[in-house]
């Protein structure tokens, strides 16, 4: 690595990104630094950590929030709006790594790495997050599901940076549920994750969004499962239909951490448990 750039503001950061598309933008560095130990250093780094324009939580009209891309998990954990309105995200942040990683890792960094086991990603998907991306030419907004284009691939051009994540206000009375199943109780890599949001209307599931992690090449919405549940009363019978739908739409894999059979079985059980809790 020959150059370490630490731009002072967003325009400077975007200019640096445009000038050096081969430099690696680094926020908390918790992913980058691990990967960097086994490979040659990049030609340069653009340090984004602590950049004011990319940090912090602000209110949006209508009750949503805008989260700067370089906001750490620790900041989100201490934010009352997140705790009150998006407990799903709060619960997920609490289980990322352990306190040192939470103090350093950022939401934007997790999105940029886009690992299939990224812990904050299923909540963003289930909460209908919108990703705000900027370049020197301006800002664009993309639904998070569309932003995920493949295994560790996101819809980000070489001159762009992720600048913020917007979360719309959830439906009044919506239930939010988070479950991470990892290899151990803390500092663990996920084997299955489920983020779910649902609300009932007249005893029936009016809307439900289920996002799963570590069961596919990227974080996914279980749309067929959601369809199987929408309009039903939350019952064992509905849960059974949901499980069947889930089996038809995800095909997890065996790896060092777990088995396909386990991932599928646990995902089914978590969906069932969520349905019965509504």
């Amino acid at each position, binding site marked *: *690595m*020959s*150059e*370490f750039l*630490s731009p002072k503001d967003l325009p400077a950061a975007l200019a640096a990104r445009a000038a050096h598309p081969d430099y690696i933008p*680094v926020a908390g*560095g*918790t992913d980058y*630094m*691990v990967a*960097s*130990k086994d490979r040659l*250093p990049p030609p340069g*780094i653009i*340090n984004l*950590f602590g950049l004011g324009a990319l940090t912090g939580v602000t209110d949006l009209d209508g009750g949503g929030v805008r989260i700067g891309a370089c906001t750490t998990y*620790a900041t989100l954990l201490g934010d009352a709006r997140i705790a009150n309105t998006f407990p799903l995200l709060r619960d997920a942040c609490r289980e990322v*790594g*352990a*306190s*040192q*990683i939470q*103090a*350093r890792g950022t939401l934007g960094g997790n999105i940029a790495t886009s690992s299939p086991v990224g812990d904050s990603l299923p909540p963003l998907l289930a909460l209908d997050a919108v990703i705000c991306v900027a370049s020197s030419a301006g800002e664009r907004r993309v639904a998070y599901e569309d932003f995920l284009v493949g295994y560790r691939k996101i819809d980000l051009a070489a001159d762009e940076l992720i600048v913020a994540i917007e979360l719309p206000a959830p439906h009044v009375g919506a239930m939010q549920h988070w479950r991470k199943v990892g290899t151990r*109780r*803390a*500092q663990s890599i996920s084997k299955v994750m489920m983020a779910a949001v649902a609300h009932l209307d007249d005893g029936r599931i009016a809307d439900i969004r289920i996002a799963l992690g570590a069961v596919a090449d990227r974080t996914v919405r279980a749309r067929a499962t959601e369809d199987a549940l929408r309009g039903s009363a939350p019952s064992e019978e509905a849960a059974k239909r949901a499980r069947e739908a889930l089996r038809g739409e995800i095909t997890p894999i065996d790896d060092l951490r777990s088995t396909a059979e386990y991932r599928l079985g646990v995902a089914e059980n978590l969906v069932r448990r969520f349905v019965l809790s509504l």
Partner: protein
Amino acid sequence: MPDALLLHMKVNGEDVEVAAPPHFTLLEVLRYKLDLIGSKQGCDKGDCGACTVQLDGTARLSCLTLAAQADGRKVRTVEGMTAAHLHPLQDCMDKQVAAQCGFCTPGILMAAEAYLTKQARAVSRDEVAEAMAGNLCRCTGYVKIVDAIVEASEIMAAKEQG
């Protein structure tokens, strides 16, 4: 060889100017440039917590922090804990025999001090277990470390109030 960066940090209360290659981690600068060997390298991949230091009062993994990202900041290591007397945390760790092989101890102390300072109150065993989960110990089964941190939190909280 890439050019060295000239970094300025306040390390354990002292202003330090140090030249280091841009790819150096904070751990490498502390251990190899400043001879602060208290911070340990157990895995170099952010998995064990033995390299934990405090950056502006927050516990950080120095093996995953580029030294350049600590430029202009306050760094505290285990060496900064010891004034004339042992810090209450060190004292409790010592008396409770919470340091066995001792290799994880500096990182444990840094993480625990940052946590207790932020809480500024007596904490429970469960809270300690959650707050400290980023620091591995293979000797103790964690029991005595939790004992020591809980006891230190009581002493520190009493001092705050007194």
